């Protein structure tokens, strides 16, 4: 088991005052709160900080931890010496607020598991205990095309469960999920009773699945609208043209009006993500220049210059 340096996690000195510890905790909790932070390991950091604070905010636990931790560094292999907590009095039940179910083995070794899984009190004596399982949250990665047609997706979820020995263990579970047509990035699918298992006869919690689109090589998505960058040859943009453009539901014929400019948007109404009402499909025009890498191409550019007097910087006054 690794020794955890709670002072390092909180970014405070070993002799920090209780007020300094509280301020550091508030700041880190805001920074790493999983609902607020976009950092990939936010949830892990948030739990770590919560665990560190659980110990350091309580003078009794802190004093015991200080005595024990004097000779250890973060990450070092750690075994608590037998009877290490003798002479310290812990007033039980002060797991205030923090969700203790994410605390580390290190914490449990030192301070025990004065909490239960599933949000209720631990089973006491012979009384039977029932509690509804935890609600869980996960992301499911889908393709934009799945949102256009609907799809069935298989995914694997890792989740923590109490094993036969009463210790939490990580299990894998495969799910086959119906992705409804018209879902959008960041939306949530609630799968009733697919969350954490209940305790006793308590029913399972719910699973909240957040939809995430895999980045698409052609399209960008904003809410229910879909965008495509469409390159044109200079003569197509200047003279107008009939061209083909891809869409998630198949190629379409597009009429490019004469004298079209770069970054002009053409809207195909209702061709975005399906729904009531459906989103739109936007074609954003780009003008691609043919490279002047042959004598013929260079000659053509020179003739173009002669034929069409043009100063693209006229409006800059130079």
């Amino acid at each position, binding site marked *: 088991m690794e020794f955890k340096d709670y002072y390092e996690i909180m970014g405070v000195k070993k002799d920090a005052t209780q007020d300094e510890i509280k301020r550091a905790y*508030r700041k880190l*909790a*805001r920074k790493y*709160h999983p*609902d*607020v932070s976009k950092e990939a390991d936010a949830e892990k950091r*948030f739990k770590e900080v*919560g665990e560190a604070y659980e110990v350091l905010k309580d003078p009794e636990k802190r004093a015991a931890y200080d005595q024990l931790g004097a000779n250890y560094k973060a990450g070092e292999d750690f075994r608590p010496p037998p009877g290490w907590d003798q002479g310290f009095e812990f007033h039980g039940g002060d797991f205030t*607020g923090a969700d203790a179910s994410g605390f580390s083995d290190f914490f449990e070794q030192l301070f025990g598991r004065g909490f239960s899984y599933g949000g209720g009190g631990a089973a006491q004596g012979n009384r039977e205990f029932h509690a*509804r399982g935890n*609600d869980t949250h996960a992301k499911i990665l889908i393709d934009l095309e799945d949102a256009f047609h609907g799809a*069935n997706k*298989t995914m694997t979820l890792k989740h923590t469960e109490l094993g036969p020995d009463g210790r939490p263990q990580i299990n894998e579970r*495969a*799910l*086959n*999920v*119906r992705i*409804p047509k*018209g*879902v*959008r*990035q*960041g*939306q*949530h*699918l*609630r*799968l*009733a009773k*697919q969350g954490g298992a209940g305790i006793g006869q308590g029913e399972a919690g*719910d699973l*909240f*699945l957040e939809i995430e689109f895999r980045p698409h090589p052609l399209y*960008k*998505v*904003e*809410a229910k609208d879909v*965008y495509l*960058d469409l*390159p044109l040859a200079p003569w197509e943009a200047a003279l107008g043209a009939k061209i083909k453009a891809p869409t998630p539901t198949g190629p379409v014929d597009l009429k490019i009006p004469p004298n079209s400019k770069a*970054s002009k948007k053409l809207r195909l109404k209702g061709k975005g993500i399906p729904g*009531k009402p459906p989103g739109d499909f936007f074609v*954003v025009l*780009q003008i691609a220049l043919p490279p002047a890498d042959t004598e013929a191409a260079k000659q053509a550019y020179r003739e173009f210059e002669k034929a069409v007097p043009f100063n693209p910087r006229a409006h800059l006054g130079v």
Partner: protein
Amino acid sequence: MTKQMMDLLSGDVLEDNLEITLAELCQICRVPAERVFDLVEEGIADPLGQDPRHWRFQGISVLRVRCALRLENDLGINAAGAALALDLLDEIESMRTRLSRLENLG
């Protein structure tokens, strides 16, 4: 190894045109109605209908209420603070989406 057939799970998309009652909202979010009243007062959930017995919430209220409760619980802020945070988070999210589309213009 035998191939195990898995049941196909389907659920509600909370952001869609899903409507739920106060009782359903309380049950899904595991909160007493009194807590929901506080959050409605701050505009975190915005029900249609005159009195609580006839309130209809949009599905997205589930997410907003759950998020507000987590923020209150974890960061020690009140319902007004949570309402402000939720509105700002929504705004940041839509700006992020916009930015990532515009940054990728060829």
